[in-house]
């Protein structure tokens, strides 16, 4: 346990440094994107004086290091400035839009693990056979087509031709759920509104499935490859010779060691979905942070760009941290190696 806590402390320190580096980088990059943010925000009819006034309010007329100083000062107070896109504090926007994206990504992640890993296990168990080939085709389809293509196909199949699922928004308007956490699944349970929970889940399914398909394919392929390799190990042969049932060998002896390399990729996929959710959010009119992030980049909304990128970076770091901890817990050699040092 001590080794795991040490690992956690080390990773947290590094993550803080990485976040600081990201903030400097994105702060600089956002300012070299062409376009005058004040002019874009105020429109073509605004006078030069109006544009200059807004630019001064945003400190855009000051050197970049002074601007960064303002940013750090605001950040220390928990502020990220005003978004020129929504005319609201960026923190308000993030608080409103982040839960929608997190909820979508979490459900997509659950689908990725819940479908991808078993598919990989089945494929490895029946390697070379019909099931293996079927899983291979499904996996390749998932990996090769981007999630927005799946989003459109799923919408066509299950909303246009077979009107089974809703395709816009997070919940039907008839449900007035009080926002406590911003996660509608949680808020509806807090309110004891089980119909609302079901409705939110119904709205979530298609976008989450579209988003998870690539991850499902990747998880299935990786799990299969790792398990096939593990099946060749002598201790599996020994388990077979003892006459252990095939599923016990698969679950207990082949799956666990095969999970470690898959976990790293799954963790990265999970974090990447936060950024990649943009097109799925756009197609399903999902009011999330990824869609917001792209919109603010197109409008050169500096404060919002920096705020959004920092949040997505933090999510990446947290996902990596969790994966590292899980791997340390699953693999005793990593724990012991750290203790020995």
């Amino acid at each position, binding site marked *: 346990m001590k080794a795991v806590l040490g690992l956690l402390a080390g990773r947290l320190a590094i993550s803080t440094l990485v976040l600081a580096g990201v903030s400097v980088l994105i702060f600089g990059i956002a300012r070299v994107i062409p376009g005058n943010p004040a*002019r874009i925000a*105020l429109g073509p009819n605004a006078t030069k004086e109006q544009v200059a006034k807004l630019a001064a309010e945003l400190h855009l007329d000051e050197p970049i290091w002074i601007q960064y100083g303002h940013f750090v000062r605001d950040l220390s107070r928990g502020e990220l400035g005003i978004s020129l896109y929504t005319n609201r504090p960026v923190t308000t926007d993030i608080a409103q839009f982040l839960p929608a994206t997190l909820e979508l990504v979490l459900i997509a992640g659950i689908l990725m693990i819940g479908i991808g890993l078993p598919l990989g296990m089945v494929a490895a168990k029946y390697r070379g056979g019909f099931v293996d080939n079927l899983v291979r085709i499904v996996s390749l389809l998932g990996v090769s087509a981007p999630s927005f293509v799946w989003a459109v196909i799923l919408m066509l199949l299950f909303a246009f031709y077979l009107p089974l699922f809703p395709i816009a928004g997070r919940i039907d308007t008839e449900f007035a759920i009080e926002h406590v956490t911003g996660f509608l699944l949680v808020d509806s349970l807090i309110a004891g509104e089980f119909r609302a929970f079901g409705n939110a889940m119904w709205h979530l399914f298609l976008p989450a499935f579209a988003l998870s398909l690539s991850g499902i394919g990747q998880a299935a392929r990786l799990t299969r490859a790792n398990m096939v390799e593990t099946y060749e190990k002598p201790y599996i042969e020994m388990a077979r010779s003892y006459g252990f049932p095939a599923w016990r060998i698969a679950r207990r002896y082949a799956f666990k060691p095969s999970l470690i390399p898959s976990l790293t990729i799954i963790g990265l996929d999970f974090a990447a979905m936060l950024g990649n959710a943009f097109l799925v959010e756009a197609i399903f009119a999902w009011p999330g942070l990824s869609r917001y992030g792209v919109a603010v980049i197109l409008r050169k909304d500096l404060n919002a760009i920096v705020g959004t990128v920092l949040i997505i970076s933090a999510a990446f770091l947290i996902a990596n941290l969790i994966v590292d901890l899980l791997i340390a817990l699953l693999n005793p050699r990593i724990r012991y190696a750290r203790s020995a040092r």
Partner: protein
Amino acid sequence: MLKLTRLVAVVAALAALSTAALAERVLRVDEVAVGELDPAKASDYADSMLMFNVYDTLVLPRQGGPGHVPHLAESWEQSGNDYTFKLRSDVKFQSGNSMTAEDVVFSMERMQTIGQGLSFLFVDVESIEALDAHTVRISLSRPYAPFLSSLVRLPIVDKALVMANLGEGEGEMKDWGQAYLSANGGGSGAYMVESHNPQDETVMVKNPGYFLPISDMAPDRVRLRYGLEAATVRTLVAQGEHDITSQWLPPEVKRALVSDGNQILTEGGTGSFYFKLNSQKAPFDDVHCRLAVANAYDYTSGLKLVEIAEGVAEGTPSTGAISVGMFGANPADQTLSRDLDGAKAHLAQCMHDPADFSIEISWIAEVPVEERFALLLQANLAEIGIKSSITKIPWAVFSSNVESAENTPHVSQLFVTAVTGDPDTLLWGQYHSTAAGTWQSAEHLNDSEVDSLLEAGRTATTDEGREEAYAALNQRLQAIAASVYVFDRQTVFVGRPGINVPALSDPEMAFGLDSMGFAFRLIEVE
């Protein structure tokens, strides 16, 4: 038997409940994100839809013709640069507060101080004064003939409500209620804001205390959704989950929806689509080269590119620099057409040899239909021996590049709209030399005659005087081919059957002002 009776009773009760729920008339429309609720910051189409429904203005555009009619103001008088308005005494804000002259003064001062949105329309307002509870006087610093039309962009805000909800800021007025009004309504309009998520949707409900009668057929609830993708809208309409599409759908999707039996709704007379020719860059520093392009362009084929159905396109034939229906416009039947011989003759007179130059035709990355126009123009120019290249430019890059004539492409494609319906707001920003360097003025035009005619249009005291000034301006802009006047804009929406929108389907009921056709109180939902 008893069980069966109970079952029937339960089913009947459920059916009754469902009918009650269905009895509410809901209108679902969409627009691009993001919807800005604060009327002092409203500038684009979605903002205007919110503004015209949540707030009221002193005057309204006359339906079916030019001019303005009283709205919050009962009457008005003009004396020189002073305008005196007599206000209605029966108007209440959605909060229950009565509307008075103080609210008008506050709204103007708020607009001017915040300095965003369409506040540029009021830079000439020198003073505003409440003479009594229902009389207000506005004095201008100089003659500005389109002032009355500008007032359709001055929504009257509930002063008492705003003062009770001031946010953080400096001075007595702090933030002028910006934080509050960006999330809540504060007007007297026919619809009240029920919920607002600037990236998702705004839900509005009918204002029972509205000072004008509203039809029972008008929607009880309106859901204005933001940023829906074309595929999503197509599916939602097919599912019966959406009523009126935005104007931004690709023509193919509109065509598909129309072929499914949906109706076409249009809004016109508010602006035009232009090829803007950079007059500061060779070869377009020579008027003959510009005229060669204007004559070579195939206007008829261009309209076919945006045709939605037989006889209905996202534009109507252009007659010149001013959209049909505005002061100074040419008659509707005097449409521009291609003249290849004329193009060649002008090219022969141009001081630049076509063999020595290639022009850059740009299109805005966010408006894919412009690529088709770029290809058409390229083909048209090739016929008279002008070489060209096509460049895709993201909006943010374009709006930055256009600040200098050197970085502005030879040809820029843009839709420009008169925000008040008056030609001044269509033309001044494009062609006055002091306005050069914004996306509207990619021509970087510097023509003293154009400048003086634009100024004459602003200062003429009679409609006849304005008509004369703008007619002369129209002729001048055509003579120097400042732009290619591709087509008059006709905004096309697709509506579900059973939705009746007179202002978007009957020219006699049209307002001639962008987004005013979406005054929800005038829409009927069957």
